[in-house]
């Protein structure tokens, strides 16, 4: 039964044919699991998982002013980004809060190709439409699906279809003909594994999805495992781990602040962000290893060893790879040192937790050896 109020992706029928369990997510009827979250999680860590992420927003920003205009709202330096590269960034409001996190790249010589979160895309596109000046032009790519293939065997699978993809490094991107059609491809993802995100014409999505699934190394993976994979990889989920009140400094995303942009201080919210960089934020996102008891999930309080509540968990759960419970949450910086002993409170019971480095599970992105 489909909830009539939910939108569907071009792969909806394919998910149903695979026997997926469907749920509403960000307004879309999406597969939460096929065979089971744990099995799908492990398959992605060991082989190659195929994800429908067509609910995410895709757009182009073009025109001579495209980059300068885009940079008003993001803290990354896109003017020096080379063609064929993409970069993670943050869409900032005037207070330096994170309206969304995104990937923006230069797959072709026509401005930026940008992917934003499903739950924010309408707001993001409206904001950009209203705020881009000069000849910068936003084009929403509503007629495209987005398929991710992730895992240690993803590169071999894709190289079989297009050898050049095997030579991509992490965060390389291109617009190329793949499966006989016009695609945007990047070597990136949201699982901590090597892999690709492939933007395909909506009317070709099912054919390409099924073609990839013919490979015995590839299995479909639902949103349940996507969430546990990204948690292990220490990647924040917007709306949970970061939101419009969180700054990049609080969110432990200072790597997204380009040096040149900090020097120029010419992006939304730069005042607050530079002040937090200088003086320290009042709270910061940390990784937690929960050493006993139940999984600590979003909303669980974090307390110091005296029992004072100092923060809250923003996402958490069992780590299938590590076989223990992990979480992310916010605490004041004085409690954020690696090894700090804290408590998480689950259903009234305090459980021992320790601040640990993220990613919880080592990322395995493919970085090309530097030319000698």
């Amino acid at each position, binding site marked *: 039964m489909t909830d009539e109020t939910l939108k569907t992706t071009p792969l909806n029928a394919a998910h149903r044919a695979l026997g997926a369990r469907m749920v509403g997510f960000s307004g879309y009827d999406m597969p*939460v*699991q096929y065979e*089971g*979250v*744990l*099995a799908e*999680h492990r398959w992605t860590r060991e082989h190659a998982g195929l994800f429908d992420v067509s609910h995410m927003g895709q757009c182009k920003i073009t025109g001579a002013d495209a980059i300068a205009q885009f940079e008003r709202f993001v803290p990354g330096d896109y003017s020096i980004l080379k063609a064929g590269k993409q970069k993670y960034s943050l869409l900032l409001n005037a207070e330096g809060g994170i309206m969304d996190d995104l990937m923006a790249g230069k797959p072709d010589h026509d401005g930026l190709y940008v992917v934003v979160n499903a739950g924010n895309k309408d707001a993001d596109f409206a904001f950009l439409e209203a705020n881009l000046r000069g000849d910068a032009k936003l084009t929403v790519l509503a007629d495209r699906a987005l398929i991710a293939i992730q895992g240690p065997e993803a590169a071999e699978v894709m190289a079989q279809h297009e050898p050049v993809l095997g030579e991509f490094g992490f965060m390389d991107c291109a617009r190329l003909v793949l499966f006989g059609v016009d695609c945007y491809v990047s070597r990136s993802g949201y699982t901590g594994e090597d892999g690709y995100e492939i933007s395909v014409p909506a009317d070709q999505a099912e054919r390409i999805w099924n073609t990839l699934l013919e490979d015995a190394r590839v299995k479909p993976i639902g949103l*349940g*495992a996507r*969430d*546990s994979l990204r948690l292990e990889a220490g990647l924040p989920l917007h709306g949970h781990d970061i939101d419009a009140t969180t700054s990049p400094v609080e969110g432990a995303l200072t790597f997204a602040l380009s040096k040149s942009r900090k020097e120029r201080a010419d992006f939304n919210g730069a005042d607050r962000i530079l002040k937090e960089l200088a003086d320290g934020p009042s709270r910061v996102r940390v990784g937690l290893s929960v050493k006993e008891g*139940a*999984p600590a*999930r979003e909303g669980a309080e974090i307390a110091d060893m005296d029992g004072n509540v100092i923060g809250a968990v923003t996402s958490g*759960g*069992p780590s*299938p790879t590590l076989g223990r419970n992990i979480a992310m949450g916010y605490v004041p910086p004085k409690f954020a040192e690696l090894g700090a002993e804290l408590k998480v409170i689950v*259903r009234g019971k305090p459980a021992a937790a320790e601040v640990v480095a993220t990613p919880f599970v080592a990322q395995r992105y493919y970085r090309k050896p530097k030319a000698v």
Partner: protein
Amino acid sequence: MHFTKDHEWVRLEGDVATVGISKHAADALGDVVFVETPDAGKTVSKGDSFAVVESVKAASDVYAPVAGEVVEGNAALASAPETVNADPEGEGWFAKIRVSDASQVEALMDRAAYDQYLTTL
């Protein structure tokens, strides 16, 4: 064996009821990763949340299908929560409760009525 609309099952032997969650519930939850069962001696009323079962994605309460005193919680589930998926209506039991009123069990759905109920969901 009897069932509730919340998908707990009850098997009465003498005045002790073994309770757990149905296969339907276990399948719907998916991979069970954590189970919290009650300690012996705890008194529960019918409908009380007396245990917690967690899948990768979420925590769910388990409600006492009958009133009584907990005789034993299934401690084995702490280290092997996956038993709830493997054998939900057997080894994956949650607790044994000494019932205060055995007629509470008889008032629940039998297997045929529960199977019929599942078709209405």
